[in-house]
């Protein structure tokens, strides 16, 4: 049976347990401090300091590098093309899964299959499909739409490689956005769309006037993450285009792994960070919901 402990020791024991939450988060904070925060500081140093002197030489090298403009341009193009298309596609997929049709469970199961596929694997898959002697040409020839193999991955034709990369990325990463939209959609009480219907709104009007505005927080989150991830596009480029195209992330990798210059690599990564934060910040600001409009 329980014995009565002396108040003094209990008081001490109790005070120790007051610190329990802090003790529980300490390992995480320590780990992230050591292996995340500190490397970030180091990255900053690598980009702005060579052998102890402050300098912008890494940045100068980066900007003057022959691949820089192409990398910057292609990265921005990718982000600008993929994100909007993905937003529409994910919305359509989420609406389908949310609709009251039989088989929506099956649709959901299929749509989220690519969720955990890496960009390298996706690149390899679509390369297998789009390569000259690949599956797309096989199907098209069988169906009779073409009579000679078309070179989809033609570096000399404008935008072919861009489209190939866009398709591969859309295929792989739209599931992520769809899941966020779906969670958001399911948070919208159906009374709102029903009320809109009673007052005469058709399907597209309901989407535009009721669903999209109420989905804003989810859109905001999804776009935020997708933009940040899109700026990191790396392995899919290598898999599909080889060395024909490059992005900022690919250049960063190249300068570190092949040219062994961590300073320029850090400069590239700093640029990626700034650009993605900027783009993310714009998205968050544009999609902010004023306090007055929140019903909570």
């Amino acid at each position: 049976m329980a014995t009565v402990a002396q108040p003094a020791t209990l008081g001490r024991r109790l005070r120790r347990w007051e610190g329990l939450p802090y003790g529980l988060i300490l390992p995480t904070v320590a780990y992230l401090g050591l292996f995340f925060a500190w490397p970030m500081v180091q990255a900053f140093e690598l980009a702005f300091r060579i052998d102890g002197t402050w300098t912008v030489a890494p940045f100068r090298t980066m900007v003057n590098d022959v691949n820089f403009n192409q990398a910057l341009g292609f990265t921005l193009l990718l982000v600008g093309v993929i994100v909007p298309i993905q937003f529409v596609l994910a919305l359509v997929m989420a609406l389908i899964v949310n609709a009251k049709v039989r088989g929506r469970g099956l649709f959901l199961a299929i749509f989220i299959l690519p969720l955990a596929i890496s960009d390298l694997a996706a690149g390899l898959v679509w390369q297998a499909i789009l390569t000259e002697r690949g599956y797309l040409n096989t199907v098209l020839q069988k169906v009779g739409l073409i009579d000679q193999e078309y070179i989809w991955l033609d570096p000399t034709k404008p935008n072919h490689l861009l489209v190939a990369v866009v398709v591969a990325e859309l295929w792989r990463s739209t599931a992520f956005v769809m899941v966020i939209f779906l969670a958001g959609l399911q948070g919208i009480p159906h009374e709102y769309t029903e009320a809109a219907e009673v007052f005469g709104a058709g399907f597209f009007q309901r989407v535009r006037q009721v669903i999209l505005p109420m989905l804003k927080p989810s859109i905001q989150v999804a776009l935020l993450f997708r933009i940040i991830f899109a700026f990191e596009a790396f392995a899919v480029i290598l898999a599909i285009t080889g060395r024909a195209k490059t992005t900022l992330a690919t250049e960063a990798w190249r300068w570190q792994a092949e040219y062994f210059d961590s300073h320029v690599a850090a400069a590239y990564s700093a640029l990626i960070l700034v650009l993605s934060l900027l783009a993310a910040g714009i998205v968050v600001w544009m999609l902010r919901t004023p306090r007055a409009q929140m019903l909570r």
Partner: protein
Amino acid sequence: MRDRAPHLLRSLAGWLPKALVYVVGIVVSLWVLGPLYVITLAAFSSEQDVYDYPKQLLPKDLSTGTMRFFLDFPGMTDALWRSVIVAAATLAISLAIGTPAGYALARFAFRGADTVRLSVVATRAFPIVILSIPLAVIFIRWGIDDSIQGVAIAHTALALPFVVLTTASVFAGVPAELEEAAMTLGCSRASAFVRVALPLALPGLAASAIFVFIISWNEVFAASLLTLQNRTLPAAVLSTLEGAPLNFRFAGGFFLLAPSVLVILVIRRYLFTMWGRVVR
């Protein structure tokens, strides 16, 4: 007496949106499933068929020739094994460190909780790119460059925020009253956690553990920067990409992809417990 035509039109109009949903849904499904089917087919074709054109679209003459070629390639099975070890280590460490933090965020309203939560979310805003480069430099200094320990450390740093947020959401889903009831019935805080909270949180925790495994399995940027001889699977595939023959690429793609797809098939029900609250 009702006029037939408008009635038919009305029922057609009611039927149309549903049909549209099915059509679009099926088209998208084919778009998602097609490549998966194709790569599986390609990975299981024999060495000669791989170079054939037109490609086989039906699963006849399946063979493990391509897979064997891939696995026999010098270093591939080692790389595969290394990926497993790194992913397992990442899973173990990140869960050991992150679960208590997630529990603390879910149960205690302590000063600084919001800051911790915000900082943890903010780490996802930092691209893996900007983390890997200084880590590569640091690891050289510490003598663990080109090692699986280094990759595991980097992957844990990547996975830890995810673990903290998902375990927080999982524990938030277990009513605190259950642990309080256990405490009034004779449990200490720790005992209540082990006997009540943990068993009920286990499915969610298992799902996030599996997801961490996949995150590590897929990760290619840091892995290829931090290793040279001791590559993980994605890094090995990436490094051999340029000269690689077709069958190599097909098999590589399949190996990288198969665990991920299988995992999603298995844990999809728990995805919403994880994502629904984490993202909000």
